[in-house]
């Protein structure tokens, strides 16, 4: 039995002269929830499309549920549920029709389960898909991806552009999938509070490169903001190691570190500051600092 649902190794995708994904490697363990976060155009959708066999990688290796997505597409698709960013669906069908239509592709389609979700999400069965609101369409797209009880659910920005109520429903449904043992979820998002709620493991991607890839807990455990108020004499930033200046206003400064240890504070204490405080960070702050650090090192 394979312990990883997804395994990407040195994955690269080049469109003409544009490197969309660069040398990306990651693993997703069976039963875990992986959240891929990144700014717009970071390479999230390209990565997902390669995992589904919708795009051919320029270089690298992909294995999803033991299959090579490009070669074994049809076999893989039976085991995966996918909601694309654009949530394309046939607009002229009614909800009932599209559910029936979708069911024909899957031997494992569970009609009772689909009906139950449909009722819970209050989807109007007789309405035409094109008449549905954006929120309803998003819910329907998720239902179509869940109805065959897939081993792996892949969601590309499942709740972007939706109101708080719909986002909540979508999240509840994703959680209900996680509740079933052994189901794996891979999702991309730029809504960091959502990722913080449900992800076990987080990847931060920017300009096609995976900058961080760690269990959410570890990421939070190691990231800290160090606030300091200097007492007359203060060091130049270059003299402080393994920390990065976040903000500074005169004697007051805030530093960021992604590898916190108590002895990191010794170099601050050496200057006998007036005040020295260590604070935990939200995922959003960690994300912003990670991206900023990457951009700065590119300039150097």
């Amino acid at each position: 039995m394979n312990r990883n649902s997804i395994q990407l190794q040195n994955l690269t995708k080049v469109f003409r002269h544009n490197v969309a994904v660069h040398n990306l490697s990651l693993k997703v363990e069976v039963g875990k929830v992986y959240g891929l976060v990144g700014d717009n155009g970071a390479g999230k959708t390209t990565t997902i499309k390669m995992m589904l066999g919708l795009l051919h990688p320029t270089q690298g290796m992909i294995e999803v549920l033991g299959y090579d997505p490009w070669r074994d597409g049809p076999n893989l698709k039976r085991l995966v549920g996918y909601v694309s960013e654009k949530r394309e669906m046939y607009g002229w069908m009614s909800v009932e029709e599209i559910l029936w239509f979708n069911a024909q592709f899957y031997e494992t389609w569970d009609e009772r389960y689909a009906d139950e979700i449909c009722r819970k999400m209050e989807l109007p069965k007789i309405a035409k898909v094109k008449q549905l609101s954006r929120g309803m369409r998003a819910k329907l797209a998720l239902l179509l991806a869940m109805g065959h009880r897939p081993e792996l659910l892949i969601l590309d920005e499942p709740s972007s552009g939706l109101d708080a109520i719909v986002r909540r429903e979508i999240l509840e449904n994703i959680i209900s999938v996680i509740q079933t043992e052994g189901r794996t979820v891979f999702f991309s998002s730029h809504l960091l509070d959502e990722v913080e709620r449900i992800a076990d493991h987080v990847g931060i991607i920017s300009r096609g490169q995976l900058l961080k890839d760690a269990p959410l807990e570890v990421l939070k455990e190691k990231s800290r903001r160090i606030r300091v108020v200097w007492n007359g004499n203060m060091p130049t930033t270059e003299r402080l190691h393994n920390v990065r200046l976040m903000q500074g206003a005169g004697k007051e400064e805030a530093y960021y570190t992604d590898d916190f240890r108590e002895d990191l504070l010794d170099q601050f204490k050496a200057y006998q500051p007036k005040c020295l405080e260590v604070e935990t960070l939200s995922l959003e702050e960690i994300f912003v600092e990670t991206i900023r650090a990457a951009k700065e090192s590119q300039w150097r």
Partner: protein
Amino acid sequence: MLIQIDLTNGVPIFLQIVRQVKYKVAVGALMPGDQLPSVRQLAGDLRINPNTVAKSYTELERAGIIVTKRGAGCFVAEKTVIIEKEERLKIIAAHVDRALTEAFHLDIPLKEVETLFHQRMEHVKERSGQ
């Protein structure tokens, strides 16, 4: 059991649950023998990963705050009295620490803080008529 998740303060979610349950036990909002919601239910209510809830329950069990009864669920432990006192003191200690930090920033000597503390104690005693 009402738990509030705050995603802005940087404290890991599992730790927020652990702290709030401890607090509830300490102040008597949860009594020995009370049943906690199942992992599944709490994860659904809070819209968080069930693994996170499971992790906080494991931590609470390790700390002796709750006990798991096979097939029945999680319950507040019967013997939480000692921990209860400890927890209560910890909560107060945190408040005292905050006041001391503030005093330090405002350049008030510890000796004066001590005097102030006794003054306030007298004040509270008078008010409560003791």
